[in-house]
């Protein structure tokens, strides 16, 4: 609130002098007993704050307490002691991971690189597909046909990661003496995309094909669902815009270029920035369910690295330090991209 001089002092006509305004006295009072007034407001309006309480507790317990546990990465990890009683060890785990130059450190760098590469390829190959899909949806004039296409293409998104990865595993499974290899491998072999040996030994066992499997299944899973946003932007375009373009003799391509593209450009930019912001936050569940010891070279990401060392092994400090680095860089990316999005389009994502 803006306070001007007249708020403080009132000119009294009777005594021909200035005196303090009563409102200012109240303001001073509020300032002096700030916390008392906060308390009184809360007591008076207790129902509202009671409603807020469960949510705060839930997020405090299961989102913020882990952040406190994360401090374990600065301490000497000891299974028996809680974090508060462990000795401070500074950045030793970080040094160990980043600079030691041994097998563990190499493994961490590999995981960091894989995390980045998996998201980056996802951005390059996965990002355009929903846009193309939305453009095609727009071409389908019949509502029934379009609904059928949409229902079918959104479908994989609602399947759990376990079901999806199980299906992938079964469709490209390796062959054995008694059983044949998976039906998808068979198809890919028949169109000469993969060799017979690869089909028999199993695509998922070959590190050279992990990224392709991951990205293609990712596109299969999310492209339809991702197109919703773009499609909403496209159907918001007024038909008169198309008509005006047609009057000017614009063909289909010209309409795309001068009518549709400018209208969805802001959506595309926002989505692109969000994707860049989440470059380091890759879903661990899918990698965890698809990879195996043969494919660690290309498949191991920071989360799975941490899961292997922290949950299966006992190096909780090392694992926490790895995740700490990944998540801090990830957070900076998210905040940075959100700031850019806000500056660029006046639309904030949060």
């Amino acid at each position: 609130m803006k306070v001007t001089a007249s708020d403080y002092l009132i000119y009294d006509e009777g005594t021909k002098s200035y005196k303090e305004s009563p409102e200012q006295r109240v303001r001073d009072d509020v300032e002096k007993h700030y916390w008392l007034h906060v308390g009184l407001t809360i007591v008076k309006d207790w129902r509202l704050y009671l409603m807020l309480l469960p949510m705060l507790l839930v997020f405090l317990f299961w989102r913020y307490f882990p952040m406190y546990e994360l401090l374990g990465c600065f301490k000497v990890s000891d299974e028996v002691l809680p974090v508060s009683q462990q000795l401070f060890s500074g950045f030793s785990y970080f040094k160990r991971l980043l600079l030691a130059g041994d097998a563990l450190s190499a493994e961490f760098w590999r995981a960091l690189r894989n995390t980045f590469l998996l998201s980056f390829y996802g951005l390059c190959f996965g990002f355009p597909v929903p846009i193309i899909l939305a453009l095609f949806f727009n071409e389908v004039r019949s509502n029934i046909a379009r609904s059928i296409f949409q229902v079918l293409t959104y479908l994989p998104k609602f399947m759990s990661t376990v079901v999806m990865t199980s299906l992938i595993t079964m469709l490209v499974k390796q062959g054995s003496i008694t059983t044949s290899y998976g039906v998808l491998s068979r198809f890919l072999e028949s169109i000469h995309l993969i060799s017979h040996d690869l089909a028999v030994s199993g695509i998922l066992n070959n590190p050279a094909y992990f990224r392709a499997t991951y990205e293609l299944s990712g596109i299969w899973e999310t492209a339809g669902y991702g197109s919703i946003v773009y499609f909403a932007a496209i159907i918001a375009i007024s038909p008169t815009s198309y008509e005006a373009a047609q009057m000017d003799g614009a063909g289909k391509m010209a309409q795309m270029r001068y009518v549709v593209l400018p209208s969805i450009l802001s959506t595309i930019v926002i989505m692109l920035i969000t994707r860049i912001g989440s470059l380091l936050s890759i879903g661990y569940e899918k990698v965890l369910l698809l990879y195996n010891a043969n494919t660690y070279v290309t498949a191991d990401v920071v989360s799975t690295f941490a899961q292997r060392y922290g949950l299966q092994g006992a190096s909780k400090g090392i694992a926490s330090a790895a995740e700490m680095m990944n998540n801090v860089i990830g957070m900076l990316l998210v905040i940075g991209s959100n700031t850019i999005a806000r500056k660029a389009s006046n639309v904030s994502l949060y």
Partner: protein
Amino acid sequence: MKRKLEISELIFKVISYLFLTMFSIMCLYPFVYAISAAISGRSAVEYSQVILFPKQIQFAAFKRMFSNNMFWNSYSNTLFITLYGTIFALVYSILGAYALSKKRLLFRKFFNFFLVFTMWFSAGIVPQYLNYLSTKTVFNGIGITDDKWLVVIAMGMAAMNVILLRNAFENVPSEIEEAAIVDGATEFQVLSQVYIPMSKSTIATVALFFGISRWNGYFWARQMISNSNEHPLMVFIRLLLEEYTDAEAMAGWNEIYASDSVIYALIVCSIVPILIIYPFIQKYFAKGVNMGGVKE
């Protein structure tokens, strides 16, 4: 000029129909294949002769699955977690979002930040695991030995869903609320009689988001539930796939179905409920994505 226009449009139309048809088939195929493989005979599955339609039809794999106690156990566990988990998450989300949508709430900015920060920064798997372990100790200490409750209460919170609800509540016109207050409605009545009925579709969307994520939840359920009788369906599927010999033992050596068919049957059973309700809920999801938290 006019003629050329029509041709370019026609070509584009043909391409889009072709592409969409292909993509739709790709999206549907794995599920159709799973059903076919689950009801096909042993040799047809083992030699990958099933391409689209089932061959040597049998239902023994399904029967074998239905006679397994673990299957019914895990199914009921998944239902339990989905039902209670969704209710729990909805209750705290609606209450919290209502409070956050009120301009008169003190420290409103701080509470919003408290929520949004969890979307920017997550502690990671290992600290969460340690935290869940200590929660589990507390739970066991007060006599809750059923780990399902841990999954219900401690997992699957989403700040995004709260923000969706908050935005919907902010769009409720304040005149209606004032009218209700003049008529003597209390805070809880305002919420239940005015706000909730007026943002039904957003609440449905958020409930579905929560429900689907509970139904599909796997990783933490597997980490935190030690008793295998309490495992949900997704963990059961994964364990069966990992310990392939189990599926083999189920099929036996002289059954008429392949061991793969057992796993396919299980997968089919796990997706059938989603497939049944999916056509009805699909439009809500589309709506939820468009709300997407983008706030001008």
